[in-house]
């Protein structure tokens, strides 16, 4: 058996095919179907769990996680602006990407944890959803400043109705309302096929990642360093928060992974409209070209190992 989980081999297959300029590609409609299925199954799985959680604990975790999502961009911004010498809009936009999350990274993490029987709070998808938005608003404020009227309300509204959130939250609600038995008849599509669907998705992710390397070469070393350094920092924040919230070891590692992951769907879409002067290829080169591969290939095991260390030290 290979060093990598097979789904990662699909990512590498896509990456290789892309770099070799193969004509392989998933039709847009298939890519959408596959991401819809991933979002729904993640949501449903998490929703079933939600019912079992005390509301108080959930609210507290949600608030804490939102705070983290707003804080991380505030850390990333100055680094990008002053060390990276990026224009204000670009720095703000990239920062927003790193404050938000990547569902694909979470999906890979779940298969990593499951195959190693690492337990984690099953309502994580709820925190995943909660973590998606705040960074976007912070990013816009960083770009525009609070002074000028920027209708954060309508932007939040726009973003909340984005495809990704609707499916993730919709899945959470349906899972929560239906419970395990209610969901059972849909298990074959949403749960049994999960890993195969994820493999297809990662195949396309590999192709998309390969397409980013060109721009990476153009924008140079700093972006690469940032794309690796930032998630490392975020993962530490995530571990601290998870530990502080009293999450399990697995839950803490998972929160570290969420913190370390960078958005490439919700945030780019929002930034394109709200901060148009930001160059979208920059943020995607960093988040898709560097951080995503780093996280799925190296980060996930690493953040987990770090968490184990922390719990060991703390434990005794």
């Amino acid at each position, binding site marked *: 058996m290979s060093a990598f989980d097979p789904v990662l081999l699909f990512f590498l297959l896509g990456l290789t095919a892309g770099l070799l300029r193969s004509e392989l590609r998933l039709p847009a409609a298939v890519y959408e179907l596959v991401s819809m299925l991933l979002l729904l199954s993640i949501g449903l799985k998490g929703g079933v769990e939600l019912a079992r959680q005390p509301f108080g604990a959930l609210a507290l975790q949600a608030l804490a996680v939102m705070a983290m999502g707003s804080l991380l961009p505030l850390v990333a911004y100055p680094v990008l602006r002053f060390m990276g010498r990026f224009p204000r809009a670009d720095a703000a936009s990239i920062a927003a990407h790193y404050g938000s999350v990547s569902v694909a990274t979470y999906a890979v993490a779940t298969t990593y944890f499951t195959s190693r029987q690492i337990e984690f709070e099953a309502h994580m998808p709820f925190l995943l959803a909660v973590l998606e938005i705040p960074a976007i608003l912070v990013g816009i404020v960083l770009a525009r400043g609070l002074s000028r009227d920027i209708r954060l309300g309508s932007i939040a509204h726009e973003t909340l109705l984005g495809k990704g959130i609707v499916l993730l939250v919709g899945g959470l609600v349906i899972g929560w309302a239906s419970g395990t038995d209610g969901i059972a008849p849909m298990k074959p599509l949403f749960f049994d096929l999960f890993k195969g669907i994820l493999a297809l998705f990662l195949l396309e992710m590999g192709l998309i990642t390969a397409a980013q390397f060109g721009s990476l070469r153009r924008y140079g070393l700093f972006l690469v360093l940032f794309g690796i350094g930032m998630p490392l920092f975020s993962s530490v924040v995530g571990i601290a928060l998870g530990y502080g919230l009293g999450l399990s070891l697995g839950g803490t590692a998972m929160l570290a992974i969420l913190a370390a992951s960078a958005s490439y769907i919700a945030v780019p879409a929002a930034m394109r409209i709200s901060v148009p002067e930001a160059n*979208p290829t920059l943020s995607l080169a960093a988040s898709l070209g560097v951080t995503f591969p780093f996280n799925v290939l190296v980060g996930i095991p690493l953040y987990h190992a770090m968490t184990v260390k922390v719990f060991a030290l703390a434990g005794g």
Partner: protein
Amino acid sequence: MNSSMRKLLTVITEAALESVLTKDLERLGVHGYTVTDARGKGSRGTRNAAWGESSNIRVEIVCDATVAETIATHLQTRYYDNYAMILFVSDVAVLRPGKF
């Protein structure tokens, strides 16, 4: 056929703009528009429609010269600097000019 002349304004731009763009068009008083999905290459690089972010739309508006001018000016001032976008105008003959 008793036809009369109108302008056909074609805009090619990022798919991400579709909803805002069509809202703009309606505000600027067009009677209709047509959208098709596209991919392509230009000064902002290749947009191969491999996924949402990188796909284009091709918007056509048949209207009179004044409206065409208004739209062109609006798009140029509003979007040209920050978005992948081109536009071009040609003359077309239409039946039932009232529609446009």
